[in-house]
Structures are given as C-alpha cells and as structure tokens.
C-alpha cells in the first residue's frame, strides 16, 4: 500500500538519524525439503515457463537445486498443454512459443513424477489461477526526480475498471525488464480509487544508482501493467514483507508466505493479463533537462 510506504519512508528517515547495521554470525536449524514452484501464464504470446526447485538450508549459499524429470502440464479448460524441460536451464519447463492465455479462463498447473521427500513414492502437485483482465493504459510520462534518490518516476494515465482490481507494475528499458526481482515489483489494489482516473500517478521508478536503470536520451521506457488475482497480490505483499528489512516499529511477527500450490509446496503459479505503454526519453526529460 503506497500510503504506508510513505509513512515508512518518513519514519525510517527519523530513525536513520541513529541506526547502524553490522553483519553477525547465527546458527540456524534445518527444516525438511519442500517443492518450490514459480511460473505464470499471461496474455503475451511467447514460451511461458514454470521453474521447479526445492528449499534448502538458509545459509546454503548456492543456486536452489533444480527439480528435473518432472511431468508438467497446464490445463486452460479447453486443452491440456505439456511443458517441455529446457535443455539449457535445468528445472525450467516451457510451453510452445506460440502460446498465450485468454482473460476469464482458469488455468490449472499439474506436476507429476517427482519425489521431493525421497520416500520412493511419486508425488503430485496442483495449482489453479484465474486470469483477470486489465484495462489499457492511455499514456505514460517519465519525470526526473532528485529528492531522497536520483532517477525517474513513471507517471501513468489510465482508467481503473469499476470491478475490484489488483495490479503489478513493471518497467522495461529498451526491451529489457528492469524490475526483474520481487523487490522491485510494485503491487497495488484499487480499494482507495476504484473506478477512478489515475491522473498521472507515479507508478514505477528508475534509480540512477543502478547502472541498468540509468536513462539516456533516446531510450525507450515501457511501463507494464498486470491484472492479477487477489491471491497473487497477497502472495507478493507477503513475500515482499518477508524479503524487505523488517523493524520492530512497523513489522509484525515474521510469518511464512502463502502459496497456491497444494501438497505442502511453496511458491506461486499465476495467470494474469498484460498491457504496455511506452515513451522515449527526450533531452528535456533526461537529468531534468539540464544535460
């Protein structure tokens, strides 16, 4: 929720007058291994993927072990699509490149032929997600920003639909996704502005501190909006709250992140609609027009 984020910024600022951080050594226990699923189906036509991995000890410090040799299927209510395991990326399973989802349909992911708990018996995992529609964007603008951080905010003009909506906002630079981690996603529900026009609300950010986000004259900046389900929205909110630093002032007790996969698995299988709007960074925008 944006309102709360503002509060956190102000108060973090007042607390930052004092606080300091330091790396410490801790002994943590282990827990049993669980299946982890990350995957999505969108309205874009492309090879959609599902990544299967397993949990590890917290200080494992290597890439998550992949789950290979699984049978992965997506049922869109009309047809069952079989996903093929990638030759180059172990644990990644892909649809055919001409595949796309249809808003309003419900997608079911089915995973078989895996034995995560290594008891000799094969397990099966399922998840379903409905694909919600998303409104088109009228236009976006890039605006230079130089307080607290230096960079750009992406202002967005669009109508929010009269139905309840849950959004993810992403940003691309020259066809490269900038917001490629959970950290950088901005999620928003419309309970405080349902059915309203957005009037150029700042919806994503590019920071000059990160080399891949530095904007030069002529760069194409694309804003991506996703229409997601309430469940996926809550998943991202929960996941972000556990991945972002927590403080005794604002954070509740740490808690496990929800999942829509059954059989004690972790992660999320999401279906969502996608729309885009682009702008080109011109001289009067880059660096606030001073360059």
């Amino acid at each position, binding site marked *: 929720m944006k*309102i*709360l984020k*503002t*509060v956190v*910024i*102000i*108060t973090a*600022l*007042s*607390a930052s007058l004092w*606080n*300091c*951080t*330091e790396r*410490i*050594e801790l002994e943590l*226990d282990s*827990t049993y291994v*669980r299946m982890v699923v*990350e995957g999505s189906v969108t309205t874009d036509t492309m090879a959609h993927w599902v990544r299967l*991995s*397993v*949990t590890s*000890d*917290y*200080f494992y410090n290597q*890439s*998550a072990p992949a789950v290979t040799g699984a049978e992965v299927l997506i049922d869109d209510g009309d047809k069952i699509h079989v996903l093929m395991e990638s030759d180059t990326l172990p644990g990644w399973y892909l649809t055919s490149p001409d595949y796309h989802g249809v808003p309003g349909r419900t997608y079911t992911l089915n995973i078989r032929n895996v034995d995560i708990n290594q008891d000799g018996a094969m397990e099966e995992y399922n998840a379903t997600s409905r694909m919600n529609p998303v409104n088109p964007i009228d236009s976006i603008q890039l605006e230079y920003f130089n*307080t*607290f951080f230096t960079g750009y905010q992406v202002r967005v003009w669009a109508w929010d639909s009269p139905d309840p909506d849950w959004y993810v906002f992403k940003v691309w630079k020259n066809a490269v996704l900038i917001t490629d*981690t959970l*950290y950088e*996603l901005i999620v928003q529900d419309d309970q*405080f*502005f*349902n059915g309203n*026009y*957005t*009037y*150029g609300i*700042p919806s994503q950010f590019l920071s000059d501190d990160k080399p891949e986000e530095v904007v030069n004259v002529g760069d194409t900046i694309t804003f991506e909006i996703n229409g997601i389900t309430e469940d996926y929205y*809550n998943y991202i909110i*929960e*996941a972000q*709250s*556990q*991945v972002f*630093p*927590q*403080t*005794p*002032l*604002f954070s*509740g*007790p*740490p808690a*496990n*992140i*929800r999942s829509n996969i059954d059989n004690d698995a972790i*992660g999320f299988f999401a279906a969502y609609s996608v729309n885009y709007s682009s702008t080109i960074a011109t001289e009067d925008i880059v660096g606030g027009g001073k360059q």
Partner: protein
Amino acid sequence: MRIPLVLTLYLLLSIFPLFADTEDETGPRYTISGYIKDASTGEELIGAAIMVQELNRGTVTNVYGFYSLSLPPGFYHLRISYVGYEMYEMAVNLNENLTQNIELKEDIQELEEVTIHAEGKQAHIRKAEMSVNKLPIKSIRRIPTLMGEVDVIKAIQLLPGVQASSEGASGFSVRGGNPDQNLILLDEATVYNASHLMGFFSVFNNDAIKDVKLYKGDIPADYGGRLSSLLDVRMKEGNLKKFSGSGGIGTVSSRLTLEGPIIKDKTSFLVAGRRTYADIFLLFAKDPDIRDNTLYFYDLNLKLNHIFNDKNRLFLSGYLGRDVYANPFAKMAFGNQTYSLRWNHLFSTRIFSNFSVIHSRYDYELGTPEGDANAFRWRSKMKDYSVKADLNFFITPEHTLKFGLISTFHDFEPGNAMGLGEQSLFTEFILPSNYAVENGVYVSAEQSFGERWNLRYGLRLSMFHNVGPGTIYNYDDDYIAIDSTVYGKADFYNTFVGLEPRAAVSFMINDVSSIKSSYSRTRQYVHLAQNSTAGTPLDVWFPSTPNVNPQISDQVALGYFRNLFNNRLEVSVETYYKKMSNAIDFKDHANLLLNRYMEGELRMGEATSYGLEILLRKNDGKLNGWISYTYSKTTREVAEINNGNPYAAPYDRPHDIAIVGNYEISRRIWVSANWVYSTGLPVTFPTGRFEYMGNIAPVYSNRNAYRMPDYHRLDLSVSFGSKPKPDRKWHWDLNFSVYNAYGRKNAWAINFVQDENDPNITYAEMTYLFPIIPALTWNFRF
C-alpha cells in the same frame, strides 16, 4: 442484578453512622483530619504516614494528601513522616473533632543518615498492598537517561516485573502483558499513547510531575479497564506559597515550568512546557533533502488549583502534546490531549469525596501536499469522556471503606483517508466510527485485625455496552466477513458485564517483616491493534464487540517484605501466576490499518505468565538506589497460530536485572549509574529458503523459536550543583550523562540480507540503534 443490591445495602449500613460523625458501637470517637503538605510549596504529600504512638496504629494520606483518624477521646502523640522530609511530632487532646493541616519540611539533613523515621518506612510492610512500586520524582531525576531526558517511563522500566517493549521504547510490558494492557493515568485522565518520537521519549515532563505509582498486579478496585497494570501519574498542583520556576536546557529539548499562587494559600497555577529542537540540528545536515525536514515534539502541562475552604477544593488539569514530522513530500503528526476537572469535597471529617469530569483524546494524521495525483490525507482519532465519583470513608484507623463509580463514553474513529485536490486519484475512504459506554462500580475496604493482620478486599462491577450508530461485520469460521449488521443511533446493541474481585492480605511477622498475598481479576474492553513489538504512533484502539470478547486476567501473588539495617534497606520477594483469557494476537501478515475487516485479523487465545521478582532498595543516604531481578516466563496459546502449539509471548524475557545507583560525593556533586541486563526477546528466524523471482525468501521456524542476543547496557551520569545555602533562591545543576557507556551493540532488529554481489549468498545483519550517546543538560529552579 442481585449483586449491586447487596453492595448498596452493605454500603448504606456501614456508611450511615459516619454522617452522624460521633458514635459507633465502640463508644464515642472524635476525628482528627486534614491535609499533609510540603512546607515550602504547599503541595499535598501522597502517602505520608500518620502514626498514633499510644495505639501503635496509623494511616497514610490518600492521593489528594488527605488523612482522617477517628479515635476514642484522649491524649495522643502523633508522628507524621514522609520519605525525604523531616519528621513532625505533635500532641493532641482529642475531645472534639479537629481539623489539622500539617506542613512538613524537606529533610536537608538527609545526607548524614541520622533521622530514622521508621513509621513511614514501615507503612509498606504493614499495608495489605503488594506488587506496587512508588518512585519518588527526586530519584527518577537522578537516573541517567537517553540524551539526558529525565523520563518517568524509562525509570519504571528498571523495576522488577517491568520491561521496555523494545530498545529505547516508551511502551512497557508488565508481568508478560502487552503494552496496551497498561492503564496510564495523568491526573485521572487516560493517556492512550505515552510516547514521543517513535517512543524514544515519553510524554511526561518530569518538572510537572509530583508522584508516580505503578501497580503491577494488585490493582485497587477503584481502577479497571486494563489487564496488567496501572501507572498513576499525578501532576504538581502549583506552588501555593510563592512564585517559583524550574527548567532546563538539554541536548534535545528545553523545559520551563512556572508555578505560583494567584491567591496565597488558596489558588495556584502551574504551566510547564517542553519542546525538542532536533529540527534545528537538521539545518546542519549535509543532505539538503534532510535540511528541509521538520521534526519536533512539544508538551504543555497546565494546572489550576483552588481551595475554597477546608471542605472544598477544585483542580483543573490539562495536558497537550504533539509530534510533527514533515518533509516536502509527506507529513505526519500525532498527539494526546487530556483534561480533568476534579472537585474534592468533605461531607464530614470522615468522608472524603472526589468528583471528576475527564476528557482524553489521541489522534494522528498523515498525508502528502495537495496538487499531485497521489495527494491524500489520513486521519484517525479516539476520544473518551468520563465522569467519576470516589468516596473514602475513614471509619476507624482499623477500617476504611471506598466506594465509587465511573462512566466513560468512548468514541473511536479508526480512520478515514481521502484524496486532496481535484487531481487526486483517491476516493474518500471512511471506516465507520464505533461508540461504547464503559461503566464501573466498586466498593473496597481496608481492615486490620489485631496487631498483625491487614486485609484489603474489593469488588468491581464492570459493564461495557456497544452503542449505535454502528456497523458490525459478521464473520464465518475462516474469519471472512460474510455480511454486516447496522445498528441505529443510541441502540445499546451489545453488553458485557463482569465482576472483578480484588483481595490482598498481609501478616506482620514482626515490626520489620511481613508476608502478603493477593488475588485480582481484571477485565479489558478496549484493545490496541498493534502487532509490531516497538509500536508506532499509528494506534488503532478498538472496542470489544460481538466479535471480540473482553480480555480477562486472573492473578495471584505471594510476597515476603522485610526492612533491614534499621529500616535503611527494603527487601521484597514476590512470586506471581497470571492467566489471561481471550488474549489478543493477530493472524499472520495481519493488515490492521484502514481495514474495514480488521476484526477478522484477530486471533484470540490464552496467555500464561509466572515469575519471581526480587527488589533490594535503599531510598536515602549518600548511596541510594536499587537492585532488581526478575525471572519470568510468558507463553501464549492460540488455535490458529503456530499450529495451535504454545509459543513464547512477544515480551517474554526470562532473566531481567536492573541495578540503579546514586552516590552523593558531596552536597554539590553526585554520580549515578544504572546497568540493565535481560534475555533477548523471542524471535522467529528462517530455517530454510527458496528462490522466487530473483530473490531469496525465507521458510520460518516455529513462532518465536529463537532469541535475540542478550541485552545489556550501562548508563552513567555526573552532576554538579550550585552551592547549597539556606537563603539561596536560585539553584542550578549541570548534568553530564552517557547512555550505553561501554558501547554495547544491542540488536534492535535482525534481518536476513541477500548479498549484492552474489545473489546466492545470504547473511544475517543486525541493526542497533544507539552507540555511546553523551548528553549535557543544565537544570535550574528558583
């Protein structure tokens, strides 16, 4: 209701003879009564002891400094004593009712440790009152503190059974309870949020405070509405004798208090103000964005006091405080206001009464400036309006009775947010207000039997009504709101009624030692929606409703009290066991702000706490202070949390030690130190991890399965004062203090961080707030 009828009858029977004022079953009695005051300021002394030598009986003054003793006719020697004051002796020939106001002089001989006023010091041994700590404001002032700001709440956190909710926080946990289970009263008015600046400072300006008393379990029947404790803070009345002032210039704030008579010995006033100037330092910040920030808080205490005659006096008290943070993009402000008007009236020399009208409120607002698409304003507030009547009946020195009632109207406005300006995206979002009436009726008595037994017993009947207009959402078994019920104006649509018995007994083993035991039941009808440990200013208080049962606590305690070395050293050992039902916790990832269905985020269960508390205390002499040790254990069990298994409560700190010392090197130089140690707070850590969208996310242990590193800290201070001379009008002292003197890095938070260079690597990182923090404060009084 049958019980109130029985109560009324009992009261009428025991009270009626008091109006007659002369005789009872033991023969004729006469009363000596009056106020005990400080000779230089006219301030009433709370808890001063009056001892009748011939009878080895006595009494202590009540919270208004009033005493009353009804004795058979005769010639008596009275001894009046109060810690830090010279003892006063007088002889009376009691053959008629006498009004005797007594003024005590401050004890300037204190350093030599010659005056031993045993009676005053033995009063706490005799009294059937336990789990109570009183801190003289004078000793609170000598405790070294963060940034040199003398703080009542930081001082009580050094007592056994009391712990800070988090480093530097004004929130505190009493015997394992939550911070919202403490009733904090300032001149009888509830203070809902006692913190400034994220809790690092409390709302109490010590220059305006006269007396602080903390009840940790055996809460008298006069008070109710909170489960764990009562912190009773009384403001000064204002000097009745002469115009005087006090103040200070400190590292973060300045204070000024002015007080004096408007009509000598009849009407007095007090005005006390404090303001921080952290924002002045911001002007020197390197970062221009920080320079534009506003960051301050202020407090204003006001008091007016008028004595009409020996039988009637009036007190008007007010407190206003506010915190403001602002930068060019956002603003946040919050604060308390409390007002109370009290009228003391003597119906007779044996019947003291107080009638109060009280208002308190807490509100906050945050928002962004108008003109942009995301401009908004968010406000929340709560208001209380109360009327209260308390009667004290001084039947005999062996028997006193109290009776009273209170009625409070609560108005909760949990939040409304709206866009600002035409270009704002946001629609108005209003959470419906809640209204409730909370009533309490009590009767309690103190009785002595023979030389050794003292008994205090009472009964409080509390009633809580939800009053329309109101909207109650109905929830299914999964806590999902299915529909709502709307109630009309003045509709008393839901009622809770409960009895709260309180009892304590003491047995004097000899003149200097006693055993005490107590039982108390408390009920709480308003609760705080807060699941972070340190707490934020964004408090949402909510009432019990058909969805939220009142919290109930039953507590038993047993203690041994002893004075050693000719009453110079007080020792107490107490054990307690407390069980709380309908204890409130919250579901995982609870959303408590601007949430229409906030009640659906609550999960209720049972909490249990037990502990052992040891206190060694030396109140006067060159070296004074205390050592406190607490061992305690607090667990919760809630069906939907931690798979229904018990878990350590958020404020469970098994071992807790505080050593507080003050030493007067000379009349002009004194040094103070305190050292605290406590087990780290319980915490949930990851036991596994998984990858999702480029980040590493945690898989957690059971709730609170780990502990933060142990907490310990040493604070020091040295003060240098003006030369004490009897005719000196202007006194000052300069105080230099160091918080966290040996620079312990106490973990405030522990986070798990993904390495920037290698995203596969995660490590633990602790955040600590305070390095060594020196501060200089200059105090004065005239």
